[in-house]
């Protein structure tokens, strides 16, 4: 994992005033005046400190991009180990500010060994304390896999993440690509899923990191919840797709939502926020994209989020409106069976309170995957008119009554289909039937949804999963 050589820009300003000075960067991250360095300001290429973020104790380290482009040697890696040991001892979030070409070439295998030790401690800390990475400049080789092992990766406007930089790519494969297209916001925010949050400015990158540290590190107790009608966001036609974001944002306390992976696999949304002041994670199908179908990428994205929430004891709300798994050769070859299984596994193993809300429909295998009763949901709510079924009623009767329908004249077939569908719905699809079987606990009104979910979370034992958060 040798780093790509990233040419260090020669500082034209004194080190003290260089915007890449790690002490300046750490100071900008923490609450004003709270930073206390825990390692020496030397030529190790790394600096660590402890301080407060929104009042809560947090630990952070930062690459020193003013020395050899922030390359990581034995001493620099020791700084990261010190930061992690402190964070683990304090039970505090640990944040990494990255701007590094990777392992120090000059140190040879010694630096590779040291970088490996960083990976090992990150894995040991996984699921124990929240780990947040902010990529401020190029992060290559070992400096790419460091952030990738953590829970959340934020990419600032100058941030680039790649295993090997454009020069190496060019010399080895002949591909001509710049660092933006290789590892910038577009490829990692939209295509690869490497990055959870993309920001337009460096300040915004710090702000989002601080919000995340507070959401994961300072979760608080659930308190008073004000109700509001969430049905306004559903279209009148049950067939019409819609954007789920307004529902998720209204479900959460005002201006608390922080969406992870907004542009990658957008057919499912994964959002942290607060409900009655307490941190919760919301997983929601988004019908506007791919009709809200689950597919291989969205199942994997949701599975990782579920496991992160479970590991840190963050209760989950699962908002379901799903027509099924996306059919097709592309999906099968993409491993929708293997990657879809991750979501089943993630929910089934989760021990945090997790409440499901079926807003319109939950069909087939995707019904099971979206935190169904059988996977151990704490509570399953449904809005009036919601449908829980193997498939839509019309589609079902077309299969069940194929011969009978085929024998009918075309002009009456539609009518009979509708009749049979209504009958079938009574038998198999409505909320009443789902309640009878026990897969839906309660029908609730959209106007009382927030308080019902909050009460269900508050009533459940506040537990947390005992596992790491492998970057699925």
């Amino acid at each position, binding site marked *: 994992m040798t780093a790509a050589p990233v040419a260090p820009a020669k500082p034209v300003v004194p080190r003290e005033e260089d915007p890449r000075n790690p002490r300046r960067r750490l100071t900008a991250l923490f609450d004003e005046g709270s930073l206390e360095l825990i390692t020496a300001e030397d030529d190790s290429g790394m600096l660590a400190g402890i301080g407060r973020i929104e009042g809560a104790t947090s630990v952070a380290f930062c690459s020193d991009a003013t020395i050899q482009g922030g390359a990581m040697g034995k001493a620099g890696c020791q700084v990261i180990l010190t930061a992690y040991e402190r964070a683990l001892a304090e039970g505090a979030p640990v944040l990494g500010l990255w701007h590094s070409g990777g392992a120090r070439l000059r140190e040879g295998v010694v630096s590779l060994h040291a970088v490996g030790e960083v990976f090992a401690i990150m894995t040991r800390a996984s699921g124990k304390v929240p780990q947040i990475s902010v990529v401020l400049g190029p992060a290559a080789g070992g400096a790419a896999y460091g952030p990738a092992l953590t829970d959340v990766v934020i990419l600032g406007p100058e941030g680039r993440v790649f295993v090997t930089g454009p020069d190496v790519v060019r010399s080895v494969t002949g591909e001509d690509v710049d660092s933006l297209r290789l590892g910038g916001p577009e490829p990692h925010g939209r295509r690869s899923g490497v990055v959870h949050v993309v920001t337009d400015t460096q300040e915004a990158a710090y702000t989002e990191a601080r919000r995340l540290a507070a959401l994961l590190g300072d979760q608080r107790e659930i308190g008073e919840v004000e109700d509001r009608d969430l049905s306004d966001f559903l279209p009148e*036609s049950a*067939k*019409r*797709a819609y954007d789920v974001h307004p529902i998720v944002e209204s479900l959460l306390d005002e201006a608390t939502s922080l969406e992870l992976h907004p542009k990658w696999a957008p057919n499912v949304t994964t959002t942290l926020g607060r409900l009655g002041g307490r941190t919760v994670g919301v997983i929601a199908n988004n*019908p*506007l*994209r*791919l*009709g*809200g*179908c689950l597919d291989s990428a969205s199942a994997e994205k949701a599975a990782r989020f579920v496991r992160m929430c479970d590991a840190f004891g963050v209760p989950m709300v699962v908002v379901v409106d799903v*027509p*099924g798994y*996306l059919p*097709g050769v*592309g999906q099968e070859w993409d491993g929708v069976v293997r990657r879809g299984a991750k979501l089943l596994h993630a929910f089934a193993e989760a021990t945090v309170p997790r409440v499901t809300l079926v807003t319109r429909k939950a069909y087939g295998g995707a019904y099971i995957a979206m935190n169904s009763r059988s996977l151990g949901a704490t509570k399953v709510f449904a809005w009036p008119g919601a449908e829980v079924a193997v498939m*839509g009623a*019309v*589609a079902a009767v077309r299969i069940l009554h194929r011969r009978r329908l085929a024998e009918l004249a075309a002009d009456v077939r539609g009518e009979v289909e509708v009749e049979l569908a209504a009958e079938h719905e009574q038998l198999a699809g409505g909320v009443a039937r789902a309640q009878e079987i026990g897969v839906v606990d309660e029908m609730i009104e959209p106007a009382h949804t927030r308080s019902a979910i909050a009460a269900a979370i508050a009533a459940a034992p506040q537990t947390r999963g005992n596992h790491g958060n492998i970057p699925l």
Partner: protein
Amino acid sequence: MAEEIRAEMVANVWKVVVAEGDAVSAGDTLVILESMKMEIPVLVETPGTVSALHVAEGDVVQEGDVLAVIE
């Protein structure tokens, strides 16, 4: 800069809402696709003018097909 709007999945083109030359802003509906027994609007992400429209109502589109170009 031209932006190609592509189909995310196999679908029927149920309704075409805009015409070539129309000015559109973010959030506007370009076409409504029909797939998975749902009507799925395709929305504008960045404002501009519809410089080309590649589909008509009743067409079947495959994943990745260009629906429209916005400049």
